[in-house]
């Protein structure tokens, strides 16, 4: 196998809410205020191969967005390292993020033309007087025409804003797009349009994607490989086909069963008990053990080490 585009190597990330000065002062005189530490990522290791789509699924609090921001270079890891090895020269620009909320991810006071063209001009990819044509070209790639150039974000629908966000990322010729819930805010009929756009851009530009979503259907459709995350850890990773046809980890199985599908006839909803624990205070051993139907004493004591089962890597004592 060739060198991966991204290698995430034992990455952990904590978020610390520092004490305010009043609390530090209180501690000096015998107070007992502790910093709140959120363990967002706990020893995550995975690769993204050139030209593939790696899907990341998991529920809220699983750390998928944090992982996305670290891979996109927007956030440093607390421990471990991310190796990013683009073929082009500008490594900073070669990874770009596509955000969830199409309205908050565009500057409300910037014309579309500047929104998209600013970075390309600032980095000397195009000359200022060529910016307009450059942006028109990009707009065509995402399915918009030149008539939108001098409009503001609020004059667009959610789907159009998503396209503008994609064009802005494409403007700096990235090799990796990190899509964080990029279609979650869109209506079903619009979501299909944007998913098709992602697939088309992958073909025409040879892009690599890290596609983060809570929507298993979307991930199954777009990804070649999938990583399932739970409370800061990757519990299972492997080819989309293997994971969706024969999930090995009890959490993945529960997730797939709970995934809403078009099914006719009266349906009983498969249910796993409980809720995700707080990442401030994750459970001991295997993070999933309080909700796991198969858990025993070992699971609550020892965190499982990832092992290979066929083309799936899984972290469970009983896989």
């Amino acid at each position, binding site marked *: 196998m060739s060198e991966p585009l991204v290698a995430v190597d034992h990455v952990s990330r904590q978020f610390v809410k520092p004490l305010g000065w009043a609390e530090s002062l209180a501690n000096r005189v015998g107070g007992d205020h502790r910093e709140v530490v959120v363990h967002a990522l706990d020893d995550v290791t995975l690769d993204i191969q050139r030209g593939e789509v790696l899907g990341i699924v998991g529920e809220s609090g699983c750390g998928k967005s944090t992982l996305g921001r670290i891979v996109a270079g927007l956030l440093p890891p607390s421990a471990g390292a991310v190796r990013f090895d683009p073929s082009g020269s500008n490594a900073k620009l070669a990874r770009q993020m596509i955000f969830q909320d199409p309205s908050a991810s565009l500057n409300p006071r*910037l014309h579309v033309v500047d929104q998209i063209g*600013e970075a390309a001009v600032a980095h000397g990819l195009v000359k200022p007087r060529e910016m307009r044509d450059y942006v028109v070209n990009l707009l065509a790639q995402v399915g918009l025409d030149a008539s939108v150039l001098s409009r503001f974000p609020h004059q667009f629908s959610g789907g159009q804003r998503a396209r503008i966000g994609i064009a802005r990322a494409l403007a700096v010729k990235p090799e990796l797009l990190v899509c964080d819930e990029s279609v979650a805010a869109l209506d079903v009929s619009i979501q299909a349009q944007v998913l098709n756009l992602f697939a088309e851009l992958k073909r025409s530009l040879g892009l690599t994607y890290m596609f983060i979503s809570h929507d298993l259907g979307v991930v199954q459709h777009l990804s070649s490989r999938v990583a399932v995350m739970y409370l800061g850890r990757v519990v299972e990773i492997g080819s989309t086909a293997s994971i969706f046809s024969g999930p090995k980890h009890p959490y993945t199985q529960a997730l797939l069963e709970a995934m809403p599908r078009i099914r006719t006839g009266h349906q009983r909803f498969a249910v796993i008990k409980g809720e995700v624990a707080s990442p401030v205070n994750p459970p001991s051993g295997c993070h999933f053990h309080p909700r796991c139907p198969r858990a025993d004493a070992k699971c609550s004591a020892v965190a499982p080490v990832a092992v290979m089962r066929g083309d799936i890597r899984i972290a469970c004592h009983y896989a």
Partner: protein
Amino acid sequence: MQEASIWREKLADFAASRIALFGLALFVLIVLAALFAPWLSMQNPYDLAQLDIMDARLPPGSTGGDGQTFLIGSDEQGRDLWSAILYGLRISLGVGVISTLIAVSIGLVVGLIAAYRGGRWDNVIMRIVDIQLSFPAILIALILLAVLGQGIGKIIAALVTVQWAYYARTVRGAALAEMSKDYIAAAKGLALSPARIVFNHLLPNSLPPLIVVASVQVAHAIALEATLSFLGLGLPITEPSLGLLIANGYQYLLSGKYWVSFFPGVALLLTILSINLVADQLRDVLNPRLAK
């Protein structure tokens, strides 16, 4: 829709309130009156040679020694009150607007630095702001003027000193909210320079709350200047602002010569009222949470 449509829309929202339109009309009228004061008044009230002490404290409608009519009376130095009010407005508005502009600029820079740099910068700046805001504005201004002495420049300096902290705090709050939005993350991801992010992205989006606070604060500044002048700390008695005019007539109020204080008082009231009416509606129009 055209590009100017955001502002056209906001303008339409603004015009939806009649009382705000009335306030705006009144304010424009007052500003025009102040601007064209030399052409609207019958004398230059600051030119002592044009004053005649014999005309002092004449009631409204009286005729003076030179045959001129004192429309709304004269003050204790024989100034025509109408002219004095127009010239006083110039000083009051000028002082209010200039001090606000300077304070806004300082607050903007300081607030943006605090929000963008964060950490220690933010802590130090905001503690200074807290300390500044914990003293009553009038007290700080009084001490400053007592040390600096009288004069327009000095009163502006005093007003800037007591006001910049409001703006710094407002801008920091607004900028922090914007910092957490994804378009700033996107700008960082596109490796734009900090200066570009601050001036192209952060600044324009942090302005609306600042405009609202500034419009309210202009009225405060004018009122504060009037208070200081009333207390005799602002401007020299030869160039009275509205506050000083009120102070000068104050001692005659009980002797029935109401007009010396009354008419400058009305002028001050209308000025502040008109600004507040406009500011109120601006706040409603520019506040996205109240948007329809």
